[in-house]
């Protein structure tokens, strides 16, 4: 029972991380209908920048904020420079471009920062919370992960649901041409979507780095599982990304714990297949997506 408890906590903290990156994928998919395979690598790159800032004496929280801003700028630039020229052509091409970007970013990080292993600090203590006399497998930092991801998620939801900017963003994502006819500057809003995704990606990078082998490739598997979560959640819904990521994290933790770590991806695959057999467009697909 106590093992189950530990596996659950571990699944939640990993799941929240998958949720954050899944949210980034969802924001981009909503805006431009492509999967950004470079999303994890972008977070990796900005975390390396954070690492450099920290080494130069910048305080953690300043670095944190700066790097989220850089993530925003990087996401927006990617859309403008690499994705925009391919609009209206084959849908596969921009995906290949993001794969190319992934390779380039990992190469750049390797070339600049080298192969030496390095650590990355956590925002809060990594010792587990104590209840009575026992310490549980959930640290202060895990609490921070939970809070940070939820804050981001809620901020995005408020933006979408309660602001006119969000209304414009939703409209341009759902119906670009009609929105333009209504005077909405769709182009800039798609860029904005990529920028927001950049923030989510950077945040994920900062949250994963302290508890992983921080290096050019540490986000690769996170991206795969985040993609799983996003697909399960329906690719267009931020809430779906949250639930999908969480479910994926829990599934992987249980499978790894009870059946062995080599079966983790197989567990995720089975989960994905079951979810998609029930709902081929994900659990939180828009009702309107299924046109009457």
């Amino acid at each position, binding site marked *: 029972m106590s093992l189950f408890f530990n596996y659950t906590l571990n699944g939640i903290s990993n799941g929240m991380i998958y949720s954050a990156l899944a949210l980034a994928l969802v924001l981009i*998919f909503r805006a431009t*209908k*492509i*999967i950004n*395979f470079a999303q994890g690598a972008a977070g990796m790159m900005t975390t390396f920048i954070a690492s450099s800032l920290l080494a130069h004496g910048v305080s953690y929280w300043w670095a944190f904020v700066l790097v989220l801003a850089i993530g925003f700028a990087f996401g927006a630039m990617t859309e403008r420079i*690499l994705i925009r*020229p*391919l609009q*209206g*052509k*084959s*849908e*596969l*091409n*921009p*995906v*290949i*471009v993001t*794969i*190319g*970007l*992934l*390779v*380039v*970013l*990992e*190469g*750049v990080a*390797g*070339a600049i920062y*080298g*192969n030496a292993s390095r650590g990355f600090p956590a925002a809060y203590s990594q010792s587990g919370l104590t209840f009575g006399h026992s310490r549980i497998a959930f640290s202060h930092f895990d609490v921070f992960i939970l809070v940070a991801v939820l804050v981001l998620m809620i901020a995005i939801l408020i933006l979408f649901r309660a602001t006119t900017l969000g209304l414009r963003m939703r409209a341009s994502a759902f119906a670009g041409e009609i929105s333009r006819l209504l005077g909405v500057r769709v182009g800039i809003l798609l860029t904005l979507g990529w920028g927001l995704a950049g923030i989510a990606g950077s945040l994920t990078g900062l949250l994963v780095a302290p508890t992983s082998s921080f290096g050019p490739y540490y986000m*690769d*598997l996170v991206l*795969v599982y985040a*993609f*799983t979560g*996003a*697909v399960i959640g329906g*690719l*267009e819904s931020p809430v779906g990304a949250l639930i999908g990521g969480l479910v994926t994290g829990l599934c992987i933790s249980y499978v790894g714990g009870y059946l*062995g770590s*080599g*079966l*983790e*991806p*197989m567990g*995720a*695959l089975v989960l*994905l*297949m079951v979810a*998609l*057999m029930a709902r*081929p*467009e*994900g659990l939180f697909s828009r009702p309107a*997506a299924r046109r009457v």
Partner: protein
Amino acid sequence: MLRHLLFATFGAGIMYLVTSNISLFDNYQVGQIASFVVVLAGLSLLTGVNGQISLGHGAFMAVGAYTTALLMTHTQWNFILELLSAVGAAGVAGLLIGIPATRLKGPYLAGMTLLFALALPPIADKWPNTFGGDQGLTMTTPNAPGTLSPQEWLAWIQIGGALIVLVLLANLLHSRYGRTLRAVRDDEIAASLAGINVARTKVLAFVISAGCAGLAGAFLGLSTGVVNTGAFPLTLSIQLLAAMVLGGTGSLIGMVWGGILLVYLPQWSTSLSGHFNLGSGVSAYLATIIFGAVLIVAMIAAPNGIQGGLRWAWRRLPGSGSGVGGSGSSAAPGAPTPVLTDE
């Protein structure tokens, strides 16, 4: 389909001249290109012609390679039979993935196949006594006839296999079934109204495509001589998709370009980065940067892949007709291939 055959014979002739005049290492690489052409041709059929994306073809290759290797380890079967078993086993795997795939749209299918590519290799690692673990299983090519070098002989087997696959697929694409595949890609509802069994068509496309990947996996295993899971990482599946798009989605001949890129692009990148006289570590990473940059630039500069670009250039040539001697190319240049879209 005589044209395809003439073309293949022509190709075989050229390849004969090439293989007997190049070094042993070049023979090895030409054989690798041929192996990649086999898997890319299958992928091109699935993605370009039938509109289903796969990020898991590396895993189908692993299925084929392990099947042949296991048969070589435990049986005395005929070599051709062992290769065909790779096609069969990978085809069955394709069936298992293809059936659920019929209900999924582009990005959802991409997610499922990506996980498949990640999930399969650790399964083999779970039973090292059966699958050989890190040391893997040994694969041997039958002895070369006469004094032909093993490299040349293997290259011949691989090139022959690739030509056979290309001819079969080209015939298939020009048959009624080829039109069925395309009809399903273009509009599933219209296709089903026209009496096409959409689900069966899609599953069959997956099976054929996976079978090709299985054969390619066995071929690459023969090149290496040993099969272990490290040779089928997630990046392989992703590179296959990139090479397919770079070659020219939907074209079969374009897959030769794709194969050449898969084999030579990393080497060109490495030798190019070597000119900058950087430390070994930086230089190695520079090679990957060049590789990625080529992907990006190529996609922006030649959105329809190399074959699409060539066709475009051919049509610009003064006095040229429209018929290009490509086999089984289907996607018109400029026509978007709806794959990763939700609309």
